[in-house]
């Protein structure tokens, strides 16, 4: 019984996207594909415990889903156009090689992440169609009402159909931009898991980080040559490796310098480092995800925070700023500069970002920390207050509150990391 449940879970992970992709290609309709796939898995849950797990679960699911889709098309077309029905039901494409099936899933991913859809819609659609999460699961993940999430996905499917968003892998000319659109969706899912924004959720949502990594692994398998895909996967793995060390037993955020490095996941670190080395060996100018992965590789290479190669970290941030002049990257660069050149220099750099980042909690948290290290307790306290006001993550709020409340007896004035 447990084996059957495991087989169903595994089939769901491995086959959901394949089934949806194959049906979308055949019937030209995401809605039919999604519903039929869901029905096929529901049938598996019903039948497999009694009938046993079929020898080829993927083929069984695809065949079952095909039948469900045909039933629906016939049902809806009772008085309708017989010729159109025949067109939809007659599968005139030849059976596919395994490579072609991989291609189907890529098409599905690119369609779900189409730039004519709003970012939040792309995220929801990707999690539903490619990830196989249910609407209630996605609604919970983004703290949205189920009905609102359902409508968002329904509207997206209707737009794809009515505006004819194509079901295909983009042309070579558009490919890099479209891949980075897909990666942005996956990184957003990962980050929401890694630092959940809501005050009513767990501070780290392993379900979301795991799903983001799973989908990025899938895309890596489909596009093994793409440097940014490898970079994003490495970045996620090296971040995920620190997950358990990142929140204390009392539910407080533990910053990188205070983490128990022995608690990091050695296997994930090793896999992330392997990917970073692979990209370095490729000798191609890295994109932003590869540079972020390299920064994380430097951090995870230091057994003790004092062994961190900060000049390397700052050099990588310099490289990143040239590609992406966003103020958030400049803020992160300043944090590394504090370790290399001291908090005074870093604070000057941070203060220059005030116009752009005054509403961002991490800006105030960074200032608070630098001011604390410079012994300017009063200003530091005000910055902590502002950061706490803006932070949404429970573990981060707890960490910032403790740091603020410790200010009274803080005597660190030399700027060294505490």
């Amino acid at each position: 019984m447990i084996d059957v449940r495991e087989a169903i879970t595994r089939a769901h992970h491995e086959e959901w996207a394949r089934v949806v992709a194959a049906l979308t290609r055949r019937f030209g309709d995401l809605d039919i594909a999604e519903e039929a796939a869901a029905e096929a898995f529901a049938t598996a849950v019903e039948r497999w415990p009694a009938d046993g797990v079929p020898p080829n679960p993927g083929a069984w699911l695809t065949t079952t889903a095909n039948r469900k889709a045909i039933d629906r098309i016939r049902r809806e077309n009772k008085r309708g156009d017989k010729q159109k029905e025949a067109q939809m039901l007659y599968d005139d494409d030849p059976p596919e090689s395994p490579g072609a099936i991989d291609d189907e899933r890529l098409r599905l991913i690119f369609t779900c992440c189409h730039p004519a859809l709003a970012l939040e819609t792309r995220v929801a659609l990707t999690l539903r169609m490619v990830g196989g999460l249910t609407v209630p699961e996605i609604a919970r993940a983004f703290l949205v009402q189920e009905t609102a999430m359902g409508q968002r996905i329904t509207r997206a499917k209707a737009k794809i159909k009515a505006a004819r968003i194509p079901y295909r892998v983009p042309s070579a000319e558009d490919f890099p931009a479209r891949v980075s659109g897909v990666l942005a969706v996956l990184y957003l899912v990962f980050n929401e898991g890694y630092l959940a924004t809501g005050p009513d959720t767990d501070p780290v949502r392993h379900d979301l980080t795991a799903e983001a990594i799973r989908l990025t692994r899938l895309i890596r398998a489909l596009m093994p040559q793409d440097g940014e895909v490898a970079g994003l996967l490495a970045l996620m793995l090296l971040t995920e490796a620190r997950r358990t060390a990142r929140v204390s037993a009392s539910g407080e955020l533990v910053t990188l310098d205070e983490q128990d490095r022995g608690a990091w996941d050695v296997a994930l670190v090793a896999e992330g480092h392997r990917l970073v080395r692979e990209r370095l060996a490729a000798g191609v100018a890295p994109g932003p995800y590869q540079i972020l992965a390299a920064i994380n590789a430097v951090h995870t290479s230091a057994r003790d925070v004092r062994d961190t190669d900060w000049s390397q970290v700052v050099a990588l941030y310099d490289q990143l700023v040239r590609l992406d002049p966003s103020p958030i990257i400049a803020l992160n660069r300043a944090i590394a500069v504090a370790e290399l050149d001291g908090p005074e220099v870093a604070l000057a750099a941070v203060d220059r970002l005030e116009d752009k980042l005054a509403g961002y909690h991490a800006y105030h948290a960074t200032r608070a920390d630098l001011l604390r290290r410079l012994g300017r307790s009063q200003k530091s306290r005000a910055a902590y207050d502002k950061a706490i006001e803006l932070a949404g993550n429970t573990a981060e709020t707890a960490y910032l509150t403790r740091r603020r409340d410790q200010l009274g007896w803080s005597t660190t004035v030399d700027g060294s990391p505490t």
Partner: protein
Amino acid sequence: MHYLVSVIDDTAGLATPSEMAAINAFNDRLKAEGHWVFAGGLGSPSTATVIDNRGGEALFTDGPFLESKEYLAGFWIIEAPDLDVTLKLAAEGSKACNRKVEIRPFLGVDLQPFRGE
């Protein structure tokens, strides 16, 4: 598949001569590549009249049905196989007329008879 590409304007100005030249060049390209169905520029919203004949007697109202800062200044109707092709064409159209454009698909309307240009 047909799409309406609406030109959205928020200034009172008509197209400048250089914008007109760019629009003409873009139109020529649409025709050469088989995307052209129809296009036109519209008089300003102040030239609009709204007619409501739902109640048996036609009521005429001077001015546009919606007062807004942004208004429809003109449009293209283009033929394209899918949204990706349309997005590319619309991006060029926006550049040519130097204004924002909005794309919407026609629902199951066959505009072929109007392609007599």
